[in-house]
């Protein structure tokens, strides 16, 4: 009986220590990469700029998103998880498990203030953390805070199920103002001091436009017709690229005008610029499309449901 008990303890300890020591494949410090965060069957694929695969991390927990924290770390979070994990890329080890409330929707790292924010859709709040994972502050947002972006010492938080956007002071998390927006808005970027905001559209009718908002006056100064469901932005050279997942269409915008458009991928949610290319991730066809000079130059298979694209480009 004693023996069995001892064996059991040893076994439990082994399992526990194994859990604590989750290690992922190392990513060399000097390696630039694009990482595809796949959420349908949680995994992350790392690629070099030439499309070569560096590594695949199979995630054994229900992570629903990830963000790079500086160049050395990656934060993994999950909507149903009560912890977010800071992983050191060079060692592949979980450096810190941060206790969070259930309901994380999105995490965003602000380079200038070197802190990251986690939005919580159940408690409708935003929490700021230092890049080491220490809580820096907390603020109440609208219903279901999701997309976040910092600009000019301000943190813009899109409340997905609310009719306004919360604008906080980036350092103090003091609410500075509320900007009226449509429900189910998602995706934003700053272009020439204008805040461009995309979205899915509320209810049955899908949204087809990107709103141009003056952040100072909170007023909508214009619209871009980019059907259907423009929700992701990327900058490359002089162009702004907008991705509409409803019709799987990529738009290239210059001077508020559509210069080029192309059907790319199947139901793509993620877009980013990497090494002079625009890369789009098709959620339904689990493919990365590498676009250079308005041409698809490469297609790369990734895990099920690529939802985010993270890029590390270190200056040498």
């Amino acid at each position, binding site marked *: 009986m004693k023996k069995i008990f001892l064996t059991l303890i040893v076994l439990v300890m082994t399992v526990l220590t194994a859990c604590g020591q989750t290690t992922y494949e190392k990513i060399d410090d000097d390696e630039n990469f694009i990482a595809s965060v796949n959420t349908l069957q949680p995994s992350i694929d790392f690629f070099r700029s030439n499309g070569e695969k560096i590594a695949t991390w199979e995630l054994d927990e229900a992570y629903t998103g990830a963000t790079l924290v500086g160049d050395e770390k990656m934060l993994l979070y999950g909507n149903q998880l009560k912890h977010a994990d800071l992983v050191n890329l060079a060692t592949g080890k979980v450096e810190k498990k941060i206790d969070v409330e259930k309901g994380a929707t999105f995490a965003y790292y602000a380079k200038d203030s070197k802190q990251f924010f986690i939005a919580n859709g159940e408690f409708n709040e935003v929490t700021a953390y230092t890049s080491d994972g220490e809580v820096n502050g907390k603020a109440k947002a609208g219903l279901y805070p999701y997309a976040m972006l910092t600009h000019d010492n301000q943190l813009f938080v899109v409340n997905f199920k609310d009719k306004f956007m919360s604008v906080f002071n980036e350092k103090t998390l003091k609410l500075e103002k509320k900007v009226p927006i449509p429900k189910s808005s998602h995706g934003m970027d700053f272009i020439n001091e204008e805040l461009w905001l995309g979205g899915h559209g509320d209810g049955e009718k899908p949204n087809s436009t990107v709103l141009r908002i003056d952040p100072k006056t909170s007023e909508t100064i214009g619209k871009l017709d980019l059907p259907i469901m423009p929700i992701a932005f990327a900058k490359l050279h002089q162009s702004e690229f907008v991705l509409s997942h409803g019709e799987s269409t990529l738009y290239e915008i210059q001077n508020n005008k559509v210069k080029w458009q192309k059907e790319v991928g199947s*139901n793509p949610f993620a877009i980013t610029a990497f090494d002079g290319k625009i890369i789009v991730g098709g959620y339904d066809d689990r493919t990365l499309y590498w676009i250079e000079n308005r041409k698809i130059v490469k297609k790369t298979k990734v895990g099920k449901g690529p939802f985010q694209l993270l890029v590390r480009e270190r200056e040498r």
Partner: protein
Amino acid sequence: MRISTKIWLFVLATIAVTVLFMYSMTNYLYERLYVQDSKNSMVEIGGKLAHMYEGGKVTDKLVADVDRYNSYSNINVFAVRNPRELSACVPFDIDYDTLIGPEERQQLIKGNIISKQGYEKRFDRQVISVVIPLVDEKRLEGILYLYFPLEKITELASKEVIFLLISAIVFLIIIGFIIFKGIGFIMKPLRELQNAAQKMAKGDYSTRVETHSKDEIGQLGATFNEMAKSIEQEDQQQRQFLENVSHELRTPISYIKGYGEAILSNMIKEEEKADKIQLIVREAGRMEKLTNELLQLSRTKEQQEPIQLYPLPLAETIRDVVGMMTQRAEEASIDLAVTLDDEVIINANEVKMKQILINLLENAIRYSEKDTAIHIHCKQLDEKAYIIVEDHGIGIPKEDLTHVTERFYRVNKARSRVDGGSGLGLSIVNQLVQAHAGHLNIESELNKGTVITLTFPTIEENE
């Protein structure tokens, strides 16, 4: 509970069960055939309509074409290209009931057709639906959604539940009434039989039932009538018998009583007394004989003591009896002629055989005309022994022939004591002959005479 009620309840319950069974069977067939058939035809139509899709975006023309088809078809079909309806935003938490779910979306992207059945919130009803994907390069550009309102029989019933319930009840009431009447009709002869049996039990043996049919109940009725007839006859015979017995006994008793009293009161002269006492003794003997005969007859076969049978030379026995009867025959001026085969031997009891012969001869003498002869033959033929007593007397009417062996049956209904018989003689003869495994046959012609033939099995010589 009466049997008709039981049958009625049973049939009614059977019908109710049948109705229920038919209901569930209909449901089952509806599900199996109708639903499956609808599904198949929708898949077929959807597949054909999907051929209009040529890849790329789902065009307005395609949507309009499908709409046009829809307006002519009895199946509802529409094309959907709204990514919102197709669960395209699934990773996001959208507060919207999409037409197809994330799982279904995955199936559709693979090009699989989805068919489902159940409540659809969108249409607020039970539907059978088939979803045909319009896929181009792994892009779910749209779907063709075909559905057919599934009016479940239960749903129909819930609409018309009162009507259905009432018609079911009315149906059962009518059927119940018809069955009730039908059973009543079928059971009527049985009830009549029951009544008749009750009357019988109360002693009314003249009761008969009318039989109309030849079925089991009709046969039962006929059998009952036969039984009632037998009982009635038996009852009548019993009464007759008792009447006869008392009548037969009364005469000698009144003789004995009358002469006895006369002697006691010295009303009879001394020299006549011996004569009268002789008469009393004669009547007492008559009574004794009668009661002995009655005793013998009243015993059923089972109650009778077994008769000891042994090889008996018939001729000798007949001669003895003829010797005993000669004097009486002479008194009546009747000649006894005997023709005997001395070699006839049968298994018999001498005393009983003599009783048989005495009875027969007494009868023959009693009913013969004066100056005639009674012929007694004994012979053997084909392993059978025959005793034939032939007289030339008054004979027996044809209608009485079959009854003469019945107890107290007398051809002379007046029952006068002139001919002196008790009416038991032939009954006893018949009984004794049967006890000897023999057979009694009577042939007679009125005013010419009677021939009585007894047949017995003989003993084989080698036995």
